């Protein structure tokens, strides 16, 4: 999907190696700088990245955006809905300057505001769950790969168990019995925490295996041997010698895991076990829209497109990152 390097601009500044012939004194470039240069040339990935940044801004600034461009997300607007048929009066699902994405059937809630607020739940769960599984997976993978032996066997079997676990069913069952207050949290914040935990906790073996494999080969490399022979402690070797070499795969994997987690959260919302109504979620909006698709198909689009664009943007960015960080993997 990335454009071949040959066609990019004039050959002069296309390749990092070429840039090295420049006017200033030759200076070394870190791996990160080189990757960034490669990434910058990948327009599709940059586009994905820009969309991701916009999405994050939208989620963070949701109250402000809604104040400027929409209505409170849970406010009813009966005047916008046909009293007999319960569908929006305006055309295309009631899209107008006042309701940028139209209104919801029956109660006339502003879909723009609900999509904006829905992005908060999706992104929050997507990011934090990814953080949790990447953290867990990296630690466990490094321990398993570096120490080997029975520790490796134990951790690997645990990973197998987790991989075989029917996560969706477990999530449905657990989310159904979440109490009102626990662990000092209550209501929606508790539910979000539990969902983050479920998604994050059951996804770590994927990255755990990846890390284990990387560490297995890294620990035999000369620089690790050198550190070891100099008497470095294990924790030092893992943290200072091995971990930096794992940053690239972690970054790539995280970027690709976030959209997966967003989709998983949407699935849970769709099935009605995520946060409680009237809090807007994309999955929940899709679920609501299914009962109206025959008479108000427009209701499906805002949340559906939001999920689609988000997942696509993250995937494009992730692919670009992978290409930039590890060109050999192409």
């Amino acid at each position: 999907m990335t454009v071949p390097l040959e066609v990019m601009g004039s050959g002069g500044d296309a390749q990092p190696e070429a840039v090295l012939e420049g006017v200033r004194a030759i200076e070394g470039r870190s791996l990160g700088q080189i990757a960034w240069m490669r990434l910058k040339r990948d327009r599709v990935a940059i586009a994905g990245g820009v969309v991701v940044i916009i999405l994050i801004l939208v989620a963070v600034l949701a109250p402000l955006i809604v104040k400027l461009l929409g209505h409170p997300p849970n406010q009813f607007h009966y005047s916008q809905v046909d009293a007999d048929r319960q569908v929006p009066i305006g055309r295309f699902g009631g899209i107008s300057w006042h309701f940028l994405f139209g209104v919801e059937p029956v109660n006339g809630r502003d879909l723009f505001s609900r999509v904006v607020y829905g992005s908060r739940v999706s992104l929050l769960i997507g990011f934090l769950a990814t953080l949790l599984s990447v953290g867990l997976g990296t630690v466990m993978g490094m321990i398993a790969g570096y120490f080997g032996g029975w520790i490796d066997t134990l951790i690997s079997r645990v990973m197998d168990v987790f991989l075989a676990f029917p996560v969706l069913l477990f999530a449905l069952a657990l989310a159904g019995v979440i109490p009102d207050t626990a662990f000092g949290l209550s209501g929606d914040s508790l539910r979000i925490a539990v969902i983050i935990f479920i998604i994050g906790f059951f996804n770590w073996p994927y990255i755990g295996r990846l890390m284990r494999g990387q560490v297995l080969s890294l620990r035999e490399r000369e620089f690790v041997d050198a550190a070891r022979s100099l008497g470095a402690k294990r924790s030092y070797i893992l943290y200072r010698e091995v971990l930096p070499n794992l940053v690239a795969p972690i970054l790539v994997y995280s970027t690709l895991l976030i959209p997966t987690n967003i989709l998983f959260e949407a699935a849970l919302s769709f099935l009605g076990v995520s946060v409680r109504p009237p809090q807007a979620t994309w999955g929940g909006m899709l679920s609501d829209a299914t009962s109206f698709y025959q008479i108000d198909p427009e209701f499906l689009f805002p949340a559906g497109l939001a999920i689609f664009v988000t997942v696509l943007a993250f995937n494009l960015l992730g692919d670009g990152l992978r290409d930039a960080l590890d060109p050999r993997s192409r």
Partner: protein
Amino acid sequence: MTAVVAVSAVAALVLTACGSSSKKSASPSSSVTPGGSASSASSATPASSGGGTTGFNAGVDKVFNPSTQKGGTVTMANAGDWDSLDPADMYYAYEWDLVRLYGRSLLAFKSAPGAEGAKLVPDLATALGVATDNAKTWTYHIRPGVKFEDGTVITSKDVKYAVERSLDKDVFPDGPTYFNDNLDLQGYTSPYKDTDPAKLGLKAIETPDDSTIVFHLKTSFSDFDYFAMLPATVPVPAAKDTGSKYKEHVVSSGPYMFATNDLGKEFTLVRNPNYDASTDPDTGRTSLPDKYVVDLNVNAADIDNRLLSGDLDVDVTGNGLGAAAQGKVLADAKLKANSDSALIPRTWFSVINPDVAPLDNIACRKAVEYAVDKVGYQRAYGGATGGDIATGLLPPVIPGFQKMDQYEAAAMPNGDVAKAKDQLKACGQPNGFSTNISYRVERPKEKAVAEEMQQSLAQVGIKLTIKPYPQGDYFKLYAGKPDFAKANGLGIMVYGWGADWPDGYGFLDQIVDSRTIRAAGNTNLGIKIPAVDAMLDKALQTTDIAAREKIWGQIDAAVMANASVLPGIWAKGLLYRPPNLTNMFVNDGFGMYDYTTLGTTKK
């Protein structure tokens, strides 16, 4: 016993008419215009005929296109299939409606528009039941001269045998269990396991002679006439009974009989030569078409499209139109004129839980009653086509219904904030309070209700937290489990209730009798009023129909005065009638078009 074992499934199917303030109705025979003129015209017949107007709701409370013109074929389609064509094995209202074409039960709902249709009239019996022994013994007499399709005369023993076999729920799992629950069975299970040579060993039913049948009940039950209406009392000749295979050829006792029966695909009914209309003076059957063709397992959207195009006459399930077709019909005045919005014996309501503080204080409950936006509740169920705003628990199609408006649902449908605030003060919570509202997660309409109540109650400071639960366990583990509801503070619980037929006992018993409340699995979610319990007992001892029906209205008023029920809407269904049909009306007994009176101009 009582209403709604198969509720969630059946309920959606039961549609009914009535509901307009005019209770005046015309029986089909009295409103006919002479000759074939009326039958061939889909346009208006004179208003003076007592019915016969066209337009929206022309088939509700009155006869649309009255006619006596015989002949033609009526085509019907079913999106699914019958439970069974066997009268012992059916539970859907549409099955009970159509079975009257090929079977005659002891009593039947009168084929008449409006409130008349919810009244029982004798069919195979000569009169309504005679109760003796404090309503524990019920006696009926069989009409002389009624014959099966093969010409055999029907006797009381055929009826007894039919009821006996309906008791066998291994062979006939789908039928209701009213007879199993109420007859003094003394251990009798099934005629197929009967040692009596004539297979008539059940002692709870006596047949002293060929024209008399006597039922003995375990306890007094003044509403037994409704059981005599059940298809299980349609006579079955023991010699022709083939158990679970009887549905392949049910022996007709009604005006039509099976010509072909391709199970799961299609069956056709033609005139029964041994049916004598003179033995059927009370039910109002007109038997106009020469033939009925019923297609099974037809795609639901196809059914709607064929109805609108005039290719199909009746959606036999009486479910009403699907969402897509409904939207189309409501948006098109011409199509809408061919549709009927019919009330059914079902109320969508919420229980205000008196176990949960501060709702244990009646003033706090009343505050909720006043504050809720009833129009919003109605919108959640689809607006005016979904139903009428309810002012009480009892649906208007149920005999004994009394008009009231204790919490201004009709007078101030958007809610009365001032009165609600007064009640909050009286309750000692002038700034409102917090509680929870539960609903069934699979039901988007109930979700809409919860969200709507959250909005409208917030206006008076009552803060609702919304709690969805899976509908499969809603009664077993959540809202229907008093300990759970109390511990989790479920102050308002959204649900709905429908009756198998429009009768006060069937509707009320399982939802307002406090003595039915168990540790879990309740359908009474917290209505505990001793006076109501006493009235229910009194009604069961009251054999005078009018006096009994009056009690249902009194119970409704008492429940509403207690403010533990927030009535939402009286449900309606949108039915479509192609213009070529004649003599169409919604029968209140079934909540859908009466299939024994309609005719067609298409030959």
